[in-house]
C-alpha cells in the first residue's frame, strides 16, 4: 500500500475561509479538490505538504455553469461529469463534451474538477487545451480581492500557475462571440484513460459570408505549456475555410510545438499528430459551425 507522509487536514467551509487558511499556512498547505492528481503524487511521496485544505464542500459555491449573452462562467469546482453532461455547454462549446468524453474514466470524472485540472497545469492536461482554445480567462481570488488573467498568463510553466500560495482559482470565463461558431477536440492516447500522446482543440467563428472571423487552436502534451498558437489564428482569419487552409494550420501547429520523446511516443510522431489533429479538429469545428 502506498501511503503519504504525515499531513494535517482541514475542510474549508467557504472560499473566504479557505483563503484565510492559505494566508496563514502559506506554501506548506495545498488545496485539494478532486484529488486525482494530488493524492497519487502524495502517495508516491512526490508531493509532501504539511496541510491539506479540502475544498470539496465549496462545490455549492463554486460548482456552476452559467451561460450569459456574451460570456460563459464556469465555477472552478465544477466536476468533469457536470461539464460532460451539460447540454447547454455542449450547445455553445461542443469542444468541452468532446474533451470530457476522453478524459480519464467515469470515476475520475465524478470527482475531478475544472479548477483542479487547470491548477495542476500538467502539460498533457486536456481542459487547459480546451480553455486555451476558447480564449478563456481565469478568476483568481485572494485576501485582497479578485484578479482576472488570460490562459497565457495563467500558465507559468509545467505544474506552475499564476495562482499564488494564498490564492484560489474560483472561476473560468469564456467569451461568447457573435456569429456562427464551432469547436472540437481530438486526442490520441495509447489506451482509454491514459494521458494524451497529443491532443488538440480547435474553435472557429464564421462571419456572415462564411469566412473565418476568428480561429484558435490549443494543443496539449507537445511542450512545457499549453498555449494558443497566434500564428494559426492570423493565417486563418478572413479566409473561407477549406482543406488547404486546414493543412496550412496543421503545418504551423507542427512547427510551433515543442514535443519531447517519451514512452508515449517520439517527438517526431507527436509533431505529426499536432498537424493531423489540428486539421481534424478544425475540419470538425467548421462542419459544426456551418450546421
Amino acid at each position, binding site marked *: 500500500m*502506498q*501511503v503519504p507522509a504525515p499531513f494535517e487536514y482541514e475542510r474549508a467551509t467557504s472560499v473566504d475561509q479557505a483563503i484565510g487558511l492559505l494566508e496563514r499556512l502559506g506554501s506548506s498547505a495545498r488545496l485539494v479538490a478532486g484529488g486525482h492528481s494530488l493524492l497519487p503524487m502524495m502517495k508516491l511521496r512526490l508531493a509532501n505538504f504539511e496541510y491539506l485544505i479540502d475544498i470539496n464542500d465549496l462545490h455549492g459555491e463554486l460548482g456552476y455553469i452559467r451561460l450569459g449573452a456574451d460570456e460563459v462562467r464556469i465555477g472552478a469546482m465544477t466536476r468533469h461529469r457536470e461539464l460532460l453532461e451539460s447540454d447547454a455547454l455542449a450547445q455553445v462549446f461542443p469542444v468541452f463534451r468532446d474533451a470530457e468524453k476522453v478524459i480519464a474514466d467515469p470515476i475520475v470524472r465524478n470527482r475531478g474538477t475544472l479548477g483542479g485540472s487547470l491548477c495542476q497545469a500538467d502539460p498533457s492536461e486536456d481542459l487547459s487545451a480546451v480553455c486555451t482554445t476558447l480564449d478563456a480567462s481565469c478568476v483568481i481570488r485572494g485576501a485582497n480581492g479578485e484578479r482576472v488573467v488570460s490562459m497565457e498568463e495563467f500558465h507559468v510553466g509545467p505544474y506552475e500557475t499564476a495562482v499564488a500560495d494564498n490564492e484560489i482559482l474560483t472561476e473560468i470565463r469564456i467569451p461568447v462571440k457573435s456569429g456562427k461558431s464551432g469547436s472540437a477536440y481530438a486526442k490520441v492516447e*495509447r489506451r482509454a484513460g491514459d494521458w494524451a500522446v497529443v491532443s488538440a482543440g480547435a474553435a472557429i467563428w464564421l462571419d456572415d459570408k462564411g469566412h473565418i472571423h476568428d480561429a484558435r487552436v490549443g494543443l496539449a502534451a507537445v511542450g512545457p505549456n499549453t498555449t494558443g498558437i497566434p500564428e494559426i489564428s492570423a493565417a486563418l482569419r478572413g479566409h473561407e475555410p477549406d482543406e488547404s487552409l486546414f493543412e496550412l494550420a496543421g503545418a504551423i501547429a507542427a512547427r510551433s510545438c515543442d514535443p519531447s520523446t517519451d*514512452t508515449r511516443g517520439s517527438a517526431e510522431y507527436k509533431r505529426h499528430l499536432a498537424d*493531423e489533429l489540428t486539421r481534424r479538429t478544425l475540419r470538425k469545428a467548421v462542419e459544426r459551425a456551418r450546421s
Partner: protein
Amino acid sequence: MTTVQEPSQVKLTEFEDNDQKPVGFGRMLRKEDARLLRGRGRFVDDVQLPGMLHLAILRSPFAHANIVSIDTSAAEASPGVKAVVTGETLKGLGLAWMPTLSNDVQAVLATDKVRFQGQEVAFVVAEDRYQARDALELIDVEYDVLDPVIDVRRALEPDAPIIRTDLEGKNDNHVFDWETGDEEETNRVFAEADVIVKEDIVYPRVHPAPMETCGSVADFDPVEGKLRLWSTTQAPHAHRTLYAIVAGIPEHKIQVIAPDIGGGFGNKVPIYPGYVHSIVGSIVTGKPVKWMEDRSENLISTGFARDYIMRAEIAATREGKILAIRTNVLADHGAFNGTAAPVKYPAGFFGVFTGSYDLQAAHCKMTAVYTNKAPGGVAYACSFRITEAVYLVERIVDVLAYELQMDPAELRLKNFIQKDQFPYTTKTGWVYDSGDYEPTMRLAMEMAGYDELRKEQAEKRARGELMGIGISFFTEAVGAGPRKDMDILGLGMADGCELRVHPTGKAVVRLSVKTQGQGHETTFAQIIAEELGIPPADIDVVHGDTDNTPFGLGTYGSRSTPVSGAAAALVARKVRDKAKLIASAMLEVSVADIDWVKGSFSVKGDPGKSVTIQDIAMRAHGAGDLPDGMEGGLEAQICYNPSNLTYPHGAYICVVDVDPGTAEVKVRRFIAVDDCGTRINPMIIEGQVHGGLTDGVGMALMEMISFDEDGNCLGASLMDYLIPTALEVPDWETGYTVTPSPHHPIGAKGVGESATVGSPPAIVNAVVDALKPYGIRHADMPLTPSRVWDAMRGQATPPI
C-alpha cells in the same frame, strides 16, 4: 446445481445438455463466486492477527551501486518502530542470500551492492503501515554508483561491468547457453531450400501485473516452534519446502496458507525476498508481521516475463512447404536468474517453437545473460516460455507468407501436422499427444467469414483505408511433469489428491494446486461429480493450505487440470471401485452383476434394485457389515504423475483497422477457436479465454517494462505500464473443437494460458497485414500508435 441464465447469444443446446446433467461437466455458476462477488473473499491483506506488526521495504534507487554504508539509527528511533533489518543483520544469521527457482541465488537484502532498481536494501517493522513507511525515509544509505548493464546486447562485451561479483570466479555476465534440435541437419535443409526468410523478432519484457500485489503474513510461534505463513503463492507446498531449506525451520513446523488469491499469472510462483522478510520480522519481534507490497514495488521488483531477442529463420520450398526453422535467442534474465521452469529446461518449453507444422529439421541456440534489471522470467500465462515460442513461429510463418505472396491461412493449412501423425514427435523432441488441426482452423475461418474479410480488405485498400487480418495457430505444451523429466529444485512435478466421502454422501476433495481465480472450487467439484454422481454443490474443494492438503507443485503452466484434474478423476474412481464392492454386498449380487449409472449402482437386468452413492457412504461408515477384509470409510488418495504433457491447440483470427492519419490500431474483431480436449465447464473456459485474449491485446499493443539508460524502470505504475481496458477489446467470438488427450483420464488438456499464448501473434500479424501497402513485413510489439507510425514510414525499430 445452479445453471446459468440463458443469454440470447449462447446456443441453447449447451444448456439442454447441462439441464440433463445435474452432476458432472457443463456450464455451472462458479461456487466460489458467491463469496468473491459479495466481498467475502479472504485475501492475504484481509488477514488480521492480534498484535500484528507491519513491514515496509527500503529499495534501491539505483540499478547498480556499491553499498558504502547504511545508518539505521534514526529509523530505529522513529515512533512505533520495532525492528530495522539490513543485509548485514541477515548475513549474521546466514540468511542474506536465498536460492532462486533456477538454482541461482538472490539477495534477500543486499549486502555488497545493489543490482537492480527496486532491489531490497533494508526493512522496517513497525506498529502500523504508516510508521513503517515513514521510517524508511530515515534510513541513510550511502551508495557508490556503478555503470549499469541495461542493453542486453552489450552484456557480454568484454568491457561490460560484471554484475554477479558475488559468484566466485564470475568474470562475465553469462548465465547459460542452451541448445535444442539438430544443427547440422537443419543447416543442411536450409542450404538446399528454395526460400529462406530471416527476421529479428523481439518479445519485450512485460509484467503479469495481477490485481492483488504480493504479500504475506508471518506468524512464528516460539513456543510451538511453528511458522504459519499466509502468502500470495501459486505453489504453497513447493514454497514450504523451500522455506524449510532456507530458514532451517523443520518442514513439519511450517504451514503455508494461500488464501484467496487475486490473480497470479506466474507472478506468484517465485519466493520473493519480502516473504522471507516477514518471516525474519516475526522471528525477531515475536509478533505476527504483515508485508503487502504496493503497486510500484510489484511492477519494479517482482517476476517479469519474456525479454527474448530472437533471430528467426525459416526455410521453405517455392510452393510453400515449410522445411525447417532455426533461431538464435538472446535472453535477458535480469540480475538474478529467477526463471520459474523445470530444472532441466532453463529456457522453459521454448523448444516447441516448431509450432503446429510438420518440419524436416529445427534448431535453436540460446544465450542467457545477466543485466541490471529485476530478476524473474516467470511463466506469465505462458506455460514456461511457450508464449515466446509461439510468437516466434507464428510471426515468421507470416513473414514467409509475405515473401511467397501466399495467403497466410493457406500456408498454415498446407503445413499442419496431420491427424494421423499423432502422437507426433517434433524435431526438438516433444511428443504432441493428439491434435486435429485443420477442422479447428476451418472453423475459425468460417466463423470469421475469412474470404469475405479478404474481399472487404481489398476494397478498403483500394480506398486507402488500412484493414488487417491476422492469423495465429498455436500448439501449447502444458501440464508438467512427468516427474522423471521435470522438477523444480529437485521436487518432482506430480500432484496429490485426497477424497473423502462423508457418511451422508457429501464429499471433500483436497488438492495440491491453488486457484488464483481460475475456478478450481467449481471445476474440481465437477470432475468428482462426473465420476461419482455426487452433485457439485455437495463437494467441498480444499486447497492452498499445506497442513490440510496433499503435497504437489501448484498451479502455473496450465497444469491444474492436466495434472490435478487427472488426480481428482482417478481418486474418485478409486472411491468408486470401493463403493462398487460395498454395493455388491448391499445388493447381495456379485460385482460382475452390478451396473453403474451416475450416482447409483444397480443389479444388471433389475434396475429397480439399486443403491445410491449416498447409501453406500452411510454403509461405509455405519454399523452394517462390509465385505470381508474391507476397512470402513469411503476415501482415497493418490499422487498423479502425468505420463506426458498435454498439447492444446487453437486457431485465432484478428481483424484490425489502423487509422492512416494517427496510426492508432483498433481491434475490430477477434475469433478464437480453442481445442483443450474434454471441456469440463465451458463457461469457465470461455472466461479464461476472454482474460487471455485481453492480456494479448495488452502485450501486442501497449504493455512493456522499459528502462532508461541508467536502469530506471519506466513502468513503475499503472499510469506508465498500461494494461488494457474493456474499451480496447472487441466482443470476443469464441468457438471450440474437441480432441481429447489420449493419456489424460478424462481427456482434458490445460486451457488457462492458451489465449495469452495465441493472441499476441494474431494481433501483430493483423497490424502488419494492415500495413502491407507500405511494404512492411514485420514490426515489434508493443504496437503503440507512435511505433506503428514509425513502421508506416519504413522506420520500424525494435523496442529495446
